[in-house]
């Protein structure tokens, strides 16, 4: 089936998430229902002189247990942590989709799994070995662990994907771009199915130092839109969807979770760290235009909501400019208040949150929002989630460099 434009319609038939508040979609959703914070004391490596001592780390992820079902990918156990997260989320998504793997028509499948930074922790370990411990060589798998396309390659090998397979890289918009590109490949008849999203695992000493030097991390917690907010909190994880041509999904009797009806992307082309109102606003507008709906048709908005002073104010202003009066009626939340900021993986995890909101009729809260910033005066669903019929949900991703990407999901087609 095609829309009035003659383009094919794209639906979601599987999703997977690995987050600090749940290692599967169900556990992640249950964590959000409880309003659970995934922020905890930083650990797992020597903290030395670090000043920021919190993060939203995934502390009890057993990759050996979770990935032992891998059939074709022989070295996933030796991969970087970010590839483990990708493989686990992809496994959950592909299982839910019910697609037969390896794919019968492998050139009609895509695997687009991005990462903001790839295997940075592998880099750190290798460089410590070389420069501090004077080791004569890095481990032979170092390079394969590091490269930012290794998660997509690992997952592509596991499921026998022979079509477009690569990573996207756009900092905090990485997953959203991956999902958007995959949507377009299906819509334009390049492929019929796609595994798309992103994974991130960069919490280590060097990355913490780099973020600390940028002075955008909070020492206390992630409190989007709150008066007390004083920075974001680094997170990690993966969010991955299985996208499919509507007819392809219907033919095999798949359960359709949602339709991906809109995708917009812009670049501020202005500043590396100071976002513009125009770029995010236009990305949201493009996504609505692409979906052929108006602002009032959106029932829930999952904000980028990083809890930095500048993002939350700027995003609020961009939403007001586009949504007009509907901005004040629209439930908006930042789930980063619970799962932290998983950088490139954020848009994937938040896409899962949007689809679950549609499926479950409940919108997740922004926790830690005791007193809002006077400049942030919209309905951010403070502290407690809300029962709500969600027909269409928007997910915002606005990255460093002014790289903006927005997705719009709707309930499954009738």
């Amino acid at each position, binding site marked *: 089936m095609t829309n009035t434009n003659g383009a094919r319609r794209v639906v979601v038939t599987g999703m997977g998430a690995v987050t600090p508040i749940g290692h599967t979609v169900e556990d992640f959703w249950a964590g959000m229902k409880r309003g659970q914070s995934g922020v905890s004391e930083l650990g797992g490596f020597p903290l030395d002189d670090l000043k920021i001592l919190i993060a939203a780390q995934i502390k009890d992820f057993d990759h050996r247990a979770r990935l032992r079902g891998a059939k074709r990918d022989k070295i996933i156990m030796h991969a970087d942590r970010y590839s483990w997260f990708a493989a686990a989320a992809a496994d959950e998504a592909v299982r839910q989709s019910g697609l037969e793997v390896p794919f019968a028509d492998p050139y009609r499948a895509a695997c687009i799994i991005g990462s903001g930074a790839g295997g940075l922790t592998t880099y750190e370990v290798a460089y410590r070995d070389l420069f501090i411990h004077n080791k004569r060589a890095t*481990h032979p798998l170092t390079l394969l662990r590091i490269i930012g396309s290794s998660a997509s390659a690992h997952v592509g090998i596991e499921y026998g994907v022979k079509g477009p397979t690569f990573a996207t890289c756009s900092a905090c918009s990485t997953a959203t771009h991956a999902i958007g590109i995959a949507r377009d490949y299906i819509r334009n008849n390049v492929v019929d199915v796609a595994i798309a999203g992103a994974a991130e695992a960069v919490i280590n000493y060097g990355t913490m130092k780099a973020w600390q030097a940028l002075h955008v991390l909070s020492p206390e917690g992630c409190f989007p839109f709150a008066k007390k907010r004083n920075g974001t909190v680094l997170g990690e994880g993966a969010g991955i969807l299985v996208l499919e041509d509507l007819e392809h999904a219907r033919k095999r009797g798949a359960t359709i979770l949602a339709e991906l009806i809109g995708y917009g992307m812009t670049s501020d082309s202005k500043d590396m760290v100071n976002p513009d109102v125009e770029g995010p606003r236009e990305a949201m507008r493009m996504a609505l235009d692409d979906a052929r709906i108006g602002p009032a048709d959106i029932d829930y908005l999952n904000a980028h909501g990083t809890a930095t002073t500048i993002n939350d104010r700027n995003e609020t202003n961009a939403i007001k400019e586009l949504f007009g009066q509907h901005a004040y009626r629209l439930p908006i939340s930042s789930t980063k208040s619970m799962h932290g900021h998983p950088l490139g993986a954020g848009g994937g995890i938040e896409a899962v949150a949007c689809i679950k909101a549609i499926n479950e009729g409940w919108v997740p809260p922004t926790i830690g929002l005791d007193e809002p910033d006077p400049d942030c005066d919209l309905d951010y669903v403070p502290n407690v989630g809300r029962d709500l019929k969600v027909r269409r949900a928007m997910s915002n991703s606005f990255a460093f460099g002014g790289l903006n990407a927005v997705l719009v999901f709707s309930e499954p087609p009738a």
Partner: protein
Amino acid sequence: MDEVAAKIIEILKKHMKEPRDDINLSTALTDLKIESLDLAMIVFDIEDTFGIEIPYNANEEAADFKTVGSVVERVKALMTNAGAGGAAASAKAS
């Protein structure tokens, strides 16, 4: 079988998906189903264990690595060249 050979066989077994107990000096490496990535890891482990550096390029046919025995001979030759350094590394490895 001497200590060097025993250690090398131990390393080979560590990197095999299905380790076998019948490996001897005349066993051909091709019979062990060692793939290129496994070979890179085996070379790394052998270098670490014996404190040597094995000139090896994954792009070339490795004539020195036809059989387990040929690997053992090559390692022993490199250890002799490495001299005291090799001895020190052996001590470290044990």
